[in-house]
């Protein structure tokens, strides 16, 4: 049972996606674990054949408990203990736990229920339409289905809801308090004319069906990812009193969740993806995050975070670094401003880009060059 947050002590195994005899490869989703905070898909970190399932469905086990036994590829020794998804126990705290209950996926019937609740209902032959949901927006969560057939305990319902919301807020508080306590932040701000981005996007999107259209956020993430190549002091982890630059760029994408949640799961290898691929991965990531299906690696992997306010809200955002990362880049709402172009004033779409940097690792000088690089990259969107 992997640790998926600083305050996680145990998790409930709610779904096995593999059975003994199945072959698995690194990155396969093998199980779903439900914690107080939500359902998380557990990926495997080694290739091999599933030999034995060690934890039964609906068992709640402490962090560190082996979940399954995997025979290594190539027919290595049997009984290698515990190839439970070997996620390090020092996974960084969640800014926000993946939020199963806040937005649960919808059934064909229109009933809203979490994946775990849905499966339990199937197993027990319970019609979801007969279950009262206690999650936000009336979503049905695991405990609701479990409760069907039991008598009494109406107060349980309220408690489950309260626990979920409190756990989410606690996780945010834990990570952010640690950040404010340990990380000496500095902040920089840069105004960037995004006319080129808007023109390029509108031309490109005019030729595309809606499911392939791009948002400016995809350009922003790609520009940040590329800029870190020249400025490695903003992409990595500060751990045990030293900075380790990351060899890969996994951009944590801050995603707001309806009802007041926030998560920043990783968009893997963002610097390597074409803008089109990045966009479709981002759509998938947002959709899964909002429906409570984040993968374990997406929680632990981000090497830098990007927070984008989008088309609404306000013009500037000052981010708080998500430890053990060392930088967060914020994009405000695009504002049409008076701008000087070739000596004359004209209206231009302008975005405030901010950097919150870690002074233990970098200084404002390097931070300024990093932000300027992002702005420069956004002037040539076709090259992103």
């Amino acid at each position, binding site marked *: 049972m992997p640790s998926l947050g600083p305050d996680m002590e145990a998790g409930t195994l709610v779904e096995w996606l593999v059975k003994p005899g199945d072959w698995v490869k690194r990155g396969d989703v093998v199980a779903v674990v439900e914690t107080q905070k939500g359902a998380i898909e557990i990926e495997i970190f080694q290739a091999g054949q599933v030999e034995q399932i060690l934890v039964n469905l609906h068992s709640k086990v402490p962090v560190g408990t082996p979940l399954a036994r995997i025979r290594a590829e190539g027919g290595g020794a049997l009984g290698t203990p515990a190839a439970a998804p070997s996620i390090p126990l020092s996974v960084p705290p969640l800014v926000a736990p993946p939020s199963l209950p806040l937005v649960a996926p*919808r059934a064909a019937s229109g009933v809203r229920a979490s994946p775990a609740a849905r499966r339990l209902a199937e197993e027990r032959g319970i019609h979801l339409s007969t279950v009262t949901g206690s999650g936000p927006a009336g*979503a049905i969560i695991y405990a609701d289905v479990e409760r069907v057939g039991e008598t009494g305990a109406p107060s349980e319902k309220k408690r489950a809801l309260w626990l979920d919301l409190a756990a989410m807020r606690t996780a945010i508080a834990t990570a952010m308090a640690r950040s404010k306590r340990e990380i000496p932040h500095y902040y920089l701000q840069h105004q960037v004319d995004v006319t080129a981005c808007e023109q390029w996007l509108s031309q490109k999107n*005019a030729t595309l069906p*809606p*499911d392939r259209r791009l948002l400016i956020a995809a350009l922003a993430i790609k520009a940040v990812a590329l800029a870190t190549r020249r400025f490695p002091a903003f992409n990595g982890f500060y751990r045990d009193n030293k900075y380790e630059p990351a060899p890969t760029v996994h951009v944590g994408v801050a995603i*707001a969740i309806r009802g007041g949640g926030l998560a920043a799961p990783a968009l893997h290898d963002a610097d390597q993806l074409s803008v089109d691929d990045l966009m479709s991965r981002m759509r998938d990531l947002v*959709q899964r995050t909002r429906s409570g299906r984040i993968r374990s690696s997406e929680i632990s992997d981000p090497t830098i975070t990007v927070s984008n306010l*989008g088309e609404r809200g306000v013009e500037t955002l000052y981010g708080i670094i998500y430890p053990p990362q060392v930088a967060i880049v914020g994009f405000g709402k695009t504002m049409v401003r008076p701008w000087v172009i070739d000596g004359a004033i004209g209206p231009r779409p302008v975005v405030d880009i901010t950097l919150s940097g870690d002074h233990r690792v970098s200084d404002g000088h390097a931070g300024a060059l990093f932000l300027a690089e992002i702005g420069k990259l956004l002037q040539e969107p076709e090259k992103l």
Partner: protein
Amino acid sequence: MSYIDIRKVLQEELNNIAPEVDIAGIDPAANLREVMDIDSMDFLNFITAIHHRLGIDIPEIDYPKLATLDGAVAYLGTKLESSKM
């Protein structure tokens, strides 16, 4: 072609995005993105869903015409009519 209740389709898709909002209680002349707290990604998913369900092309330049429920019903109604001819 069978009659399509555009308003109902729109309400269903909006409900998918914001299940906690009482769609029936929304002022049809209000800005949907403001009153329902719909971000760029949600809105793109909304357009995508409408495109798939009604088979209507909705260019990005027309997005402002779908800002309100009434506006969207009128815009899509016209598009649907002209696509039949």
